[in-house]
């Protein structure tokens, strides 16, 4: 077997094992935590009878492993069970919301990825000069902000009548003020939807851009400091040729890996931002049901987030393997 294929298969297998292990942690780990699950859900005032009913409803009378495999079997066939609080079918509730979450994250990615790479290139090209220091300084600040703090700064700036919104309004011909909520509902058109998510997208871009840009800068600088770049310069090639033909092929793998890792980061950022803007999607659904202590929903949604995260990390690794000439062309 070709060594690259072998490595990729190994990585895929590792990803699967991780997924399985995560499902076990999410299901069985919760079991292992101290406290009576039924009690936690019903509260201190619950009658013994109500508690017993709840235990039976949750299947708590059966051994944990049995329930884990039943649950896992359900997950694999798309049956995520019923929510405790309203008996709604979890899979159905998730479907629409997952789409909304992916739409939001996708929009943020579509803007932040090219922007981060361009800014990273500029910072790397002018490393140590004012352009670099400016970009680094600004991004150091945004890195220190949690998502919700960034969100309220943005809301304060863009939803009020101030110089900024007036300027925007003057350019776009509207009021320039944006709504601090992001309402979406089924049947909405693509453009309407896009219009609705402008603010959350801005926040997500702000939060994810800094990390991605800094890592891109580091990856490119790392390549640009290689001896073979000096060789190319001493061949009298133009700066564009040096970057395009010599730096770029070697920078693809680290940059793609940076992008993937930050997409994984975006998945988490989305949870908080959805809550801030009341965006009806997976993150808000999760937080709602954590508050309601609706365990089956929390486990199902948690598993989905974990899966997305693991798959993105796995893709980053696989792209790294594929882009490595030493592995692609073995001795």
């Amino acid at each position, binding site marked *: 077997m070709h060594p690259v294929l072998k490595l990729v298969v190994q990585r895929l297998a590792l990803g699967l094992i991780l997924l399985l292990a995560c499902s076990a942690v999410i299901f069985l780990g919760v079991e292992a935590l101290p406290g009576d699950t039924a009690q936690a859900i019903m509260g201190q005032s619950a009658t013994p009878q109500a508690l017993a009913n709840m235990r039976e409803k949750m299947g708590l009378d059966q051994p944990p492993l049995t329930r884990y495999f039943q649950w896992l079997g359900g997950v694999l066939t798309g049956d995520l069970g019923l929510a405790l609080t309203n008996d709604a079918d979890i899979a159905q509730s998730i479907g629409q919301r997952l789409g909304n979450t992916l739409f939001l994250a996708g929009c943020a990615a579509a803007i932040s990825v090219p922007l981060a790479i361009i800014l990273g290139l500029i910072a790397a090209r002018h490393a140590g000069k004012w352009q670099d220091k400016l970009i680094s300084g600004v991004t150091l600040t945004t890195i220190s902000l949690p998502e919700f703090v960034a969100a309220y700064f943005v809301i304060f700036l863009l*939803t009020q009548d101030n110089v900024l919104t007036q300027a925007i309004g003057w350019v776009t011909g509207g009021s320039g003020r944006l709504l601090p909520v992001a309402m979406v509902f089924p049947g909405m058109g693509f453009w309407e939807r896009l219009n609705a998510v402008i603010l959350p997208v801005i926040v997500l871009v702000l939060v994810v851009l800094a990390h991605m840009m800094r890592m891109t800068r580091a990856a490119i600088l790392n390549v640009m400091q290689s001896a073979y770049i000096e060789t190319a310069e001493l061949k009298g090639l133009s700066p564009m040729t040096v970057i395009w033909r010599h730096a770029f092929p070697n920078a693809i793998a680290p940059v793609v890996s940076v992008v993937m890792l930050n997409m994984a980061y975006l998945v988490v950022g989305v949870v908080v931002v959805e809550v801030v803007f009341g965006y009806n999607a997976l993150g808000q659904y999760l937080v709602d049901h954590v508050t309601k202590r609706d365990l089956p929903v*929390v486990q199902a949604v948690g598993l989905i987030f*974990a899966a997305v995260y693991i798959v993105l*990390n796995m893709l980053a690794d696989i792209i790294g393997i594929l882009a490595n000439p030493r592995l692609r062309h073995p001795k």
Partner: protein
Amino acid sequence: MRLPFTQTRLPLAAFIGLSLTGIFLFCAVFAQWIAPYPIDMAVGGVWESPSAKYWLGTDTIGRDILSRLIYGGQITIFVALASSALAFSLGAFFGFFAAVNGGWIDQTLSRIVDLMMAIPSLIVALVMLSVLPLNLTVLILVIGVLDSTRVFRLSRAVAVDIAVMDYVEAAKLRGEGGAWVIFREILPNALSPLVAEFGLRFIFAVLFISTLSFLGLGIQPPLADWGGMVKENKDGLVYGKSAALVPAFAIAALAISVNLVADWVLTRTSSLKGGRGG
């Protein structure tokens, strides 16, 4: 013996970071004496603007924001310190343990940490908090345990790097015991990255507890930390009331200033390695 930290020139960024961090810590420790009003008493009108009486204005039910900010800082910093200290002791202990022992101990611990890091911390925390009671101890434990994985990776990597150095081999060849090797050869050289890491872990814990409180899953009323204060006052923003921005700003300021300090510690001490010892 000369101390490695003498004749230090303090860069501006580090100075700003150190003084801000100092002010935050001071307010947190002496909150009870500094705060002009009690934490949970409506003393004025709703969302009053800053005035001589209420320096930062009042909040959604007329409580003094400055007082709540000071008390909130106490809780935020306490939880963050406690959980990062827990993360640190756990992570550093097991990290060194894995690095020094190697073999199956290292493998097992490393795989467990890999697994814990395969799921985003916030998601794990949410799953755990859906079952656990919401109190300070639980929050500190959850944040501390989740965060210890990063400390584990760092301290293990640092210790492994140092353990292969010739001077460690020389100590083993001399016949030194494990305690000398760990405490006299490895630890002094691992200290600087670990100190800087403590700063980063602290920031992470601040952001984490703030986020949880903002989601309503952290500190519960009537206590309030900064994240919770943002949550309480967020609706005012739509009416142009900036009460929510004050705690938000405090979170950012604390995170940035600790970041600056950690940055300085890292460059200051890493330069010692290759540069002059003086």
